[in-house]
């Protein structure tokens, strides 16, 4: 029995995404181990979404940063190459520094449809975002409930279908439902972005088994979106075989956002390395790492139990 076969959370060596094959679809050890640590964490192991290579597997949400300086610092510290932004009515009193900060950082902008409760609103918001930011990419959010901010599955599917038909590169924020993730992929989404737990909750990954199931079945990149509270959550997502992590509040609302950006970056990189390395299975009993062969006979009777 292979190690990964017996352990629902174990990931075999992971290759680059976009090939339609994920960890579990590939026998352990099938991939060359040419990459070293630096290579696996760096540019030789890019995240590929819709044919675009990104050197970082951490996508940063810009929401929640108290000051632009903190955002700029966190972008740099995180190493991210893509950040999310939202669209709201123009506020004549607001400073227009956000786009300046993002321009200076040289990062790709991923507009979201945050706050939309219907497919119709999300589609119009995505069209506005395309005009505002000159990008076809959209992080599609269609929310069904104010308290939990959980996605509304039927509206999400309807919006995704419409936007794919209009040529958008759709990255849907979805529940951790493997069937819904598959439906989103089937209608042409460029990635799927399941939540670990509700937005901003910092509750980590509540159902790692579902994330595994999504990863196992996905032919597009899987981005763990929402719920990350700290480094270990991001590392776990990557260890489960996710291709990337999207993180906002855990960094922006940390006491020291820049330090947390460093930490979560390290978690994403470490988790990716571990996923590629292929972890040992969980075992109920110990398995000695030291052989019993050649044990000394010291003539001491075992103590009675």
């Amino acid at each position, binding site marked *: 029995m292979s190690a990964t076969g017996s352990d629902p959370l174990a990931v075999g060596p992971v290759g680059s995404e976009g090939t339609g094959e994920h960890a579990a679809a590939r026998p352990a050890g099938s991939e060359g181990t040419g990459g070293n640590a630096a290579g696996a964490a760096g540019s030789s192991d890019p995240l590929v979404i819709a044919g675009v290579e990104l050197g970082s597997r951490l996508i940063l*949400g*810009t*929401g*929640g*940063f108290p000051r632009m300086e903190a*955002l700029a610092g966190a972008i740099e510290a995180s190493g991210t190459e893509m950040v*999310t*932004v*939202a*669209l*709201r*009515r*123009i*506020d*004549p009193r*607001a400073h*227009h520094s*956000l*786009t300046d900060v*993002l321009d200076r950082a040289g990062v790709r*902008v991923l*507009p*979201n449809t*945050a706050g939309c409760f219907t497919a119709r609103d999300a589609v*119009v918001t995505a*069209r*506005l*975002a*395309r*005009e*505002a*930011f000159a990008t076809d990419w959209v992080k599609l959010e269609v929310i069904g409930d104010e308290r939990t901010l959980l996605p509304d599955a039927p509206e999400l599917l309807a919006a995704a279908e419409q936007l794919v038909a209009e040529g958008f590169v759709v990255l849907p924020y979805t529940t951790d439902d493997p069937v819904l993730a598959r439906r989103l992929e089937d209608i042409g989404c460029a990635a799927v972005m399941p939540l670990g737990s509700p*937005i*901003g909750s910092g509750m980590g990954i509540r159902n790692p088994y579902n994330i595994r199931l999504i990863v196992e079945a996905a032919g597009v990149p899987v981005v763990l979106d*929402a719920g990350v509270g700290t480094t270990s959550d991001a590392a776990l997502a990557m260890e489960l075989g996710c291709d990337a992590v*999207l993180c*906002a*509040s855990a960094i922006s609302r940390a006491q020291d956002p820049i330090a947390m950006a460093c930490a979560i970056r390290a978690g994403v990189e470490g988790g990716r390395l571990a996923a590629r390395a292929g972890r040992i299975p969980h075992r109920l009993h110990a398995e000695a790492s030291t052989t019993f062969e050649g044990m000394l006979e010291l003539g001491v009777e075992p103590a009675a139990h």
Partner: protein
Amino acid sequence: MIRVNGRELDGRDGATIAELLEELGAAGDGRGVAVAVDGEVVPRGEWGSHAVPAGARVEAVGAVQGG
């Protein structure tokens, strides 16, 4: 009367989108800005010529921080 970002504006019927944006303080190259009239996006190339008819609802949006 037209409605711009939820605010009713009298005497501005027929104003162009470029004029309305300037009043909102969003003049310039319009980077990171987009406009919809009655739910239809108006490309920036048409902002100077697109006159907003009476009764229309204009939504002018820009980038804000968001996850």
